[in-house]
């Protein structure tokens, strides 16, 4: 291994060549197919008495590529980071600081198992944040995994900026760290063992160790709430629409569209099955959500992993005085499942503050504190909303033959502009933002409203974008990126200077908080 201050690069085990060749198999097969189209021929230096066919040449070429790839792949482990470099024509190099390591996984795919080797994968919470060492010997895998998952690594004492050390020390594990256990065989023929670099790294499962505290009821959907949700949901609305269309076509046209009728029936049934028995419970550290009729789904999330609270108000639901609450978490072990989704499908409007407070999302901000975006946005949105319809009407007016029709089309143009203006004003009144007390509150929408409560400590990055037309109007949009998937926080059409000031404020707030594992 590397000594302090030195970088010593290591090669993977030579068995890796076989793995590289297998990964090139499809390319080799495709090349063979193409060569068949070219035709059979033989080449070779006559003086050696060789006569090589196309397949022989291709095999040599691909063997060479596999071997060169192996030679070009190296890794290094220092007291600061794990580094990996790969590629000949396009060379890549990844540097993963040791205090950002989330998981170290030891596995064995088919090639590794045949030769009694292993693959070691080091992951961070970042995108494309995996370094896969395939293949290495079992000894190397054992040594590396022990070194990279050691407590001193987690504390990051070597990196000198005091990042993770204080945090981990303050968050002493309440349960013993997860230890390597024999992995279960996977359908793909690989065997994986995951070593956590910090306790309770997976928010998707109950904690091991001491008995969890008692889970107190947080939300339980009764039949009346379910009916409210169903009658105001888009899925049921679409289903009813399709059902009505199919029945109407039967009566009027004597034609039954069975497909639409099935959708009309299926949508409500799917809703019933999925949300039946919806209930959420919490113990102050975690929240558990259960729902489902025949197949009950249970999801857990750690409250400290909540990135933002999401309040959804479809216009019909809002008209009846209800809203839907959801939370978005960062699940770094299953990045495809980072969206936690619903935690309370139907609650009275404006009850989100009290509800979220019990999940650790406590804020003094409310909708009265929202600041408007720039009023210039009304002009921009009107132009954006009206330009295409007006253009289409203009083209239509040139095409129609009837003078009366043409006159009607021309008269419709200002009405389209007026409608676009009214919608732009409506969305301007809804949009707003507020910053304070460690949170950012953003409201967006037109008829369906959406409120996002973002924890500033969870901000990963901020970007300010400005299109060509926004720049002409002195406007910019602010995008706040957190570790959850599915929900994005955007404040559109701020004055450019305001966007920059807000981004700096978010930077300062993000930098003052050190996150465990960076999420």
């Amino acid at each position, binding site marked *: 291994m590397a000594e302090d201050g030195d970088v010593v690069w290591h090669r993977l085990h030579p068995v890796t060549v076989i793995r590289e060749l297998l990964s090139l198999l499809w390319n080799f097969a495709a090349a063979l197919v193409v060569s068949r189209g070219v035709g059979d021929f033989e080449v070779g230096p006559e003086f050696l008495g060789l006569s090589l066919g196309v397949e022989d040449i291709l095999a040599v070429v691909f063997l060479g590529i596999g071997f060169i790839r192996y030679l070009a792949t190296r890794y290094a482990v220092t007291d600061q980071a794990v580094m990996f470099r790969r590629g000949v024509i*396009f*060379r890549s*190099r990844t540097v993963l600081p040791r205090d950002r390591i989330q998981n170290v996984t030891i596995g064995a795919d088919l090639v590794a198992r045949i030769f009694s080797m292993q693959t070691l994968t080091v992951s961070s919470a970042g995108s494309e944040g995996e370094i896969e060492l395939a293949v290495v010997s079992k000894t190397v895998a054992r040594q590396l995994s022990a070194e990279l998952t050691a407590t001193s690594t987690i504390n990051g004492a070597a990196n000198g900026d005091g990042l993770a050390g204080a945090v981990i020390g303050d968050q002493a594990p309440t349960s013993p760290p997860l230890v390597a256990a024999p992995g279960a065989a996977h359908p793909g023929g690989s065997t994986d063992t995951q070593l956590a670099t910090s306790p309770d790294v997976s928010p998707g499962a109950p904690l091991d160790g001491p008995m969890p505290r008692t889970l107190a009821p947080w939300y339980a959907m009764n039949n009346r709430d379910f009916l409210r949700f169903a009658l105001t949901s888009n899925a049921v609305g679409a289903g009813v629409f399709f059902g009505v269309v199919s029945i109407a076509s039967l009566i009027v046209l004597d034609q039954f569209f069975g497909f639409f009728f099935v959708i009309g029936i299926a949508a409500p049934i799917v809703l019933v099955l999925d949300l039946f028995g919806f209930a959420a419970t919490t113990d102050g550290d975690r929240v558990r959500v259960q729902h489902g009729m025949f197949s009950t789904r249970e999801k857990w999330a750690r409250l400290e992993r909540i990135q933002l609270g999401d309040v959804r108000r479809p216009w019909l639901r809002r008209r009846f005085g209800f809203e839907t609450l959801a939370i978005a978490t960062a699940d770094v072990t299953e990045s495809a499942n980072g969206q936690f989704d619903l935690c309370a499908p139907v609650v009275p409007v404006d009850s989100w503050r009290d509800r979220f407070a019990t999940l650790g999302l406590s804020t003094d901000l409310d909708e009265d504190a929202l600041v408007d975006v720039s009023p210039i946005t009304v002009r921009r949105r009107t132009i954006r909303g009206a330009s295409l319809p007006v253009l289409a009407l203009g083209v239509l007016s040139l095409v129609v033959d009837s003078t009366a029709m043409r006159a009607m089309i021309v008269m419709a143009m200002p009405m389209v502009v007026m409608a676009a203006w009214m919608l732009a004003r409506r969305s301007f009144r809804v949009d707003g933002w507020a910053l304070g007390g460690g949170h950012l509150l953003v409201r967006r929408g037109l008829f369906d409203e959406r409120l996002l409560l973002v924890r500033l400590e969870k901000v990963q*990055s901020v*970007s300010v*974008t400005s299109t060509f037309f926004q720049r002409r109007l002195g406007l910019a949009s602010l995008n706040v990126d957190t570790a*959850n998937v599915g929900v994005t926080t955007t404040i559109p059409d701020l004055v450019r200077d305001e966007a920059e000031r807000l981004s700096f404020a978010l930077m300062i707030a993000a930098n003052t908080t050190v996150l465990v594992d960076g999420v």
Partner: protein
Amino acid sequence: MSLPEAALRVMRLGWIVAAVVSFLVLAGVDIALRLALDATPPTPPVLVAIVVGACIAGFGWWWGGRVYRAWRIDLDTERLRVDHGVVVSRTAFVPRTRIQHVSTEQGPIQRALGLTSLTVHTAGARTPNVEIPHLEIATAESLRQELVGRG
């Protein structure tokens, strides 16, 4: 900090290559049609291909310059700031405490010019990567060490 001058060459080179490819394709089509149809169109041979290729090259020369000038990188004790974009200008701010890891990638043309691309990775879901193209190798290495420490 701006991108090095060699980056401008790379950005323009892409458009030049596109212009050459367009010329070859159009010229080939022109000649093939003349031969196949045994006809004599009003324009001289491959003139259209030359004009189109020249237009693409000219536009690419100008556009490459605009894209190059839009790139700015700034690193302080708090955050990394990256500005880029012409039609849609973008400014990305990444707090230094949120950087997960850093990777570099170098293609053959970049290697010939002593350049490399640097990508900063965060745990963000919407814009997890901030990529800075065509930095000088020494600058990229220095930036990498600043962001994630000495490797």
